[in-house]
């Protein structure tokens, strides 16, 4: 008797799909993007300094001003490079003055911008930790001329350090 041997077990079209590993893979991809996106979105790379006693701020990207100093010493304002303010351009007195004027006008424009948080004349500073302090001093000097009263130096907390994260009150 020729009977078509017909194993019922292996003609099941598909076993039940395991959702759990799919969710797992999706979450891992999410983590990967969460880690990679800030590096891409930053516009410039700066290795921030480390600190254990930091204050946390509510930061609204379009309402506040962020100044950047990257590893080469070039100045950025709100992620855009400030014209004339590359490190090499700032080394001559004339270049430094030109950069100063440019940065000052950009700062003043940004604080006066309607979308900017009113009366918030604080400047967030994302500066590379390996830069000589002189770069920061020059920036603070110009900031002061633009009416900045407080520079919030953005820093990283080393992992595993238990620190009191004071919430900024103003």
């Amino acid at each position, binding site marked *: 008797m020729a009977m078509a041997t017909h194993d*019922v*077990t292996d003609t099941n079209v598909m076993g039940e799909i*395991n959702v*759990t*590993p799919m*969710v*797992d893979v999706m*979450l*891992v991809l*999410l*983590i990967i993007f*969460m*880690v990679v996106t*800030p590096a891409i979105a930053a516009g410039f790379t700066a290795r921030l*300094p*480390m*600190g*254990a*006693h*930091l*204050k*946390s*701020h*509510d*930061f609204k990207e379009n309402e506040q001003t962020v100044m950047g100093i990257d590893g080469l010493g070039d100045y950025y304002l709100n992620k855009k490079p400030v014209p004339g303010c590359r490190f090499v351009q700032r080394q001559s007195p004339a270049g430094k003055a030109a950069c100063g004027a440019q940065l000052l006008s950009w700062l003043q424009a940004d604080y006066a911008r309607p979308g900017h948080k009113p009366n918030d004349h604080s400047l*967030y500073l994302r*500066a*590379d*930790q*390996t*830069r*000589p*302090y*002189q*770069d*920061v*001093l020059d920036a*603070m*000097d110009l*900031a*002061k001329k633009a009416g*900045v*009263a*407080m*520079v*919030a*130096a*953005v*820093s*990283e*907390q080393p992992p595993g350090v238990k620190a009191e*994260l004071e919430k*900024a009150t103003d």
Partner: protein
Amino acid sequence: MGISMGKTGRSEVSDINITPMIDVLLVLLVIFMLAQQVLMKTVDIQLPKDLPPNQQAQQDPDNIILEIDPGSYKVNTKPVTKDQLLPFLTQTYTGRPKKVIFVKADGRVTYQTVIEAMDIARGAGVKVIGAVLPPTT
């Protein structure tokens, strides 16, 4: 021919695999840990007011000025080693109501060094950090 089309031997409810659930849980945990880093964490530095910068800090003899030069730290002109900085500052600020420090750092010092010193000051109880800017040339 009666072909019994009974159910296959699989029972309706299979044993739930705990391992993938723990896996997903751990991954969610990592995600939340990463999400916390988006907060801006800063060392707040006050810029001097319109008085000539050097004079403002020195006007009040009660003010504490931390000077940072390449390789050396001085608190009100008294040399302090980096290891002594935290205990010395903690001692200075205990019982002192005005938790303010003025930091004057040389331009050649690394930015990290300055922030680290300010951070140590915060650990010693300082609430307000003021930057001393060199006189504008």
